[in-house]
C-alpha cells in the first residue's frame, strides 16, 4: 500500500516539494542566475525554448532552474504557461531570407553565394576535456571576451544571405515554391485528425522532442526508409517577427526570434509534367537546435514520400506514427503516469487471472 496509505497524500506531496527545493539549496554552490543559464548553457536553453513552443527566453531559464535541469520538465513549464494565454492573432508567413544569420552551411556545394559561415559549432572540435575549465573566474571570462572582440574588424560579413536552394530552383532542378494562401493549421487550437495538412505536420515536429525526432529520423537514415538527404542549407540566426499593427494592419517588427532552419534535398522523383526534379524536406524550430532541424527535415521528406506514393513502408513515413509520438510533453507525461496508483485496475486484473486459472484448473481436472 505504501504511499497511498499515508494519511493525506497532500502532506506527502508538500514534503516532497520541500525536499526537492532543499536538494537544490544544499551544499556550498551559489544560487544559479537566470543569465548564467541563457549565456552558458545556450544549447540546453534552446532545446527548452523549442520544445516548450513559447518564445520566452527568460522563462525558459527559470523553467530549467525550477526543473533542476530536466529538459523535458522545463519545456513542460513553458507549455503549461502557454495554456493561460489567449491567441491574439496570426502573422503572415516569414521569409527566412531576412534572418540575421549567425551560422550557415551547405553540404551540397563547395562554395555558396555569400560564402559558407561556420559560426559557433562543436562539429569539428575534439571532444577532449579542457581541464582548465574546471576552475574559471570572472577575470578569465573578461579576458576571453576581450580577446575575441579586440581583433574583430567591424561588419566583416553581411548580415543576411541569399538561399542556397534558390540557385537550384533557378536551374529548374528543384520545383518552384508553391504559393499557398491557405491558413496554416494551428496545432494549439485544433487536434490532429488524420489526414492532416503539411503545415500541421511541420508545426507538430517544430515543437517535438529532439530525441524522439532523432530516433525516428535515424531509423530512416539507417535503412528503414530511403530519403538519403543532402543538407542543402542549414542556417541559424535571428528572424525579425512581423505582426500586423492592431490599428493599421500593416506589418510591424515586434522583436526577433532565434531560429534554426534546415532544408534537405533528396533524390529526384518523376513528375507528372515532364522532367524529374529534386525533392525537398524542411525543418525549422526556435533556438539553436541543429540535430532537431535536420531530423525534422528528414521526417518531413519521409512522410511526404509516402503521401505521394500512397504507400507507407516504414514507421518514419507514417504521419500518425511520427506525429503522434514525437511530442515530449505528452510522451514524458504518459510514461510518468505509470508511477501513479493503479490498484483498482490491478484488482480487476487479478480477478480475471484468478477466474481464468480456476477455469484452467477445472479443465485439467475434468475426465478426458
Amino acid at each position: 500500500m505504501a504511499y497511498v496509505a499515508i494519511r493525506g497524500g497532500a502532506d506527502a506531496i508538500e514534503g516532497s516539494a520541500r525536499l526537492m527545493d532543499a536538494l537544490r539549496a544544499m551544499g556550498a554552490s551559489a544560487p544559479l542566475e537566470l543569465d548564467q543559464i541563457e549565456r552558458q548553457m545556450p544549447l540546453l536553453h534552446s532545446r527548452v525554448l523549442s520544445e516548450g513552443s513559447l518564445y520566452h527566453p527568460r522563462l525558459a531559464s527559470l523553467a530549467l532552474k525550477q526543473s533542476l535541469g530536466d529538459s523535458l520538465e522545463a519545456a513542460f513549464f513553458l507549455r503549461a504557461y502557454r495554456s493561460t494565454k489567449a491567441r491574439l492573432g496570426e502573422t503572415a508567413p516569414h521569409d527566412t531570407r531576412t534572418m540575421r544569420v549567425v551560422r550557415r552551411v551547405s553540404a551540397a556545394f563547395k562554395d555558396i553565394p555569400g560564402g559558407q559561415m561556420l559560426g559557433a559549432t562543436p562539429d569539428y572540435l575534439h571532444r577532449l576535456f579542457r581541464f582548465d575549465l574546471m576552475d574559471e573566474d570572472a577575470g578569465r571570462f573578461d579576458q576571453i571576451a576581450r580577446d575575441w572582440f579586440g581583433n574583430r574588424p567591424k561588419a566583416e560579413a553581411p548580415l543576411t544571405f541569399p538561399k542556397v536552394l534558390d540557385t537550384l530552383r533557378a536551374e529548374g532542378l528543384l520545383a518552384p515554391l508553391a504559393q499557398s494562401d491557405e491558413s496554416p493549421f494551428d496545432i494549439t487550437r485544433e487536434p490532429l485528425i488524420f489526414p492532416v495538412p503539411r503545415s500541421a505536420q511541420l508545426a507538430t515536429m517544430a515543437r517535438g522532442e529532439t530525441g524522439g525526432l532523432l530516433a525516428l529520423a535515424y531509423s530512416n537514415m539507417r535503412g528503414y526508409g530511403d530519403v538519403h538527404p543532402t543538407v542543402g542549407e542549414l542556417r541559424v540566426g535571428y528572424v525579425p517577427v512581423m505582426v500586423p499593427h492592431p490599428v493599421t494592419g500593416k506589418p510591424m517588427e515586434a522583436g526577433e526570434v532565434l531560429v534554426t532552419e534546415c532544408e534537405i534535398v533528396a533524390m529526384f522523383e518523376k513528375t507528372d509534367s515532364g522532367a524529374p526534379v529534386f525533392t525537398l524536406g524542411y525543418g525549422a524550430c526556435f533556438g539553436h537546435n541543429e540535430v532537431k532541424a535536420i531530423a525534422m527535415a528528414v521526417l518531413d521528406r519521409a512522410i511526404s514520400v509516402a503521401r505521394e506514393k500512397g504507400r507507407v513502408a516504414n514507421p518514419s513515413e507514417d504521419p500518425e506514427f511520427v506525429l503522434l509520438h514525437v511530442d515530449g510533453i505528452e510522451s514524458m507525461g504518459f510514461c510518468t503516469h505509470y508511477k501513479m496508483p493503479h490498484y483498482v485496475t490491478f484488482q480487476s486484473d487479478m480477478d480475471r487471472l484468478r477466474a481464468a486459472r480456476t477455469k484452467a484448473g477445472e479443465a485439467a481436472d475434468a475426465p478426458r
Partner: protein
Amino acid sequence: MHPVDTMGQSRDGAAYGFAFLDEDAKRELRRAIFKAVCIPGHQVPYASREMPIARGFGTGGMQLTLALLGPDDTCKVIDQGADDSVNAANIRAFFALTCPGVTGTLRTEAASVIQTRHRIPELPLRADQILVFQVPYPDPLVVVEPNAAKRRRMHGRADYARLWVKLYEDMVAFDEITISHRYPTRINGHYIIDPSPIPRFDVPKLHQADCLYLFGAGREKRIYAVPPHTDAIPITFNDVTFAVESFRDKATGKRHVCRRCGADDSFLDEFPDNDGARVFQCSDAAWCDMRLDRLEAAE
C-alpha cells in the same frame, strides 16, 4: 467531522485567471461538451491545452472540470476512489489554487462536480451532479486497430466486428472474457466507448443514470459523454453474462467484507497488511466514512 475547505485562498494563484485556462479555451471546451452530450458516446476532438500537471495524470479531466466550475460550485476529486490519494490531492490542490470561491468537499452527496480516476462513487449520483472521468485511452478500438483514421471510419459505421472477434478469441483461449477494466460499452445503441479504466464493477452504473458522465482524454484530445437516462450496455454474448469483479473468499465461499465498515456490496481494495495477511477495505473512501458515521449514529 467532514472537513470542508474554501478553495482558492493561496496567494500564488493570483497571477492566473479564474480556473487557469484562458476564456477562449473554456468556451471551446464547453462547445465540445455540448456536442458530446448531443451525440452520446461519440468522441469529440478538441485542442486540449497543456496543463501544469503531466499528461497521463488527468489533464483531460482537469480541463473539463475547469470549464465546468463556477465560483458557486462544490468540487470533489478522487483517485482509486480515495480523496487522499497522491494524485487526487495534487489535482485538488491545483483547483484550490486557481478556482477561488469553489468549495472543496470529501462528501459525494455534497459535490456538484466530481473528478475521478478509475472509479464511480458507490453512492448513486443525482441529476444535479456531474462526474468527470480522466481518460488515458478514449478509443476502445485501439486494441484491434492502431490507425486512428481507420478507427474513426469504423466508429462511423458502427463496425465493431473485430472487437467481437477479440471477445470470442478470449472465450476460445480462456473460457472467460479477460478484459478486466476499460470494458467496451455500447452507448445508446451505436457508439462503443472506452469507459476509462473503471473496474467492471462500475460499468452498470453508467446505464440509465440520473447524472451526466463526461469523459476527458487530454493527451489523446477527445471528449465524450454518457448523458443522463441513456443506455450503456457492456458488450458480451447472449450466452456469456457480463461478470463484475468477484470478492468471494475461495475458502469460505462467502464474499469478503470491508474491514472498516463491514460493507459487503462495495468495490474492495485487497492488500497485504504488515503481517502479510490479505485484508479488504472499501475503495470508495467517502462511502466507507458515511457508513461508519451511520453505524456510529445508530449506536
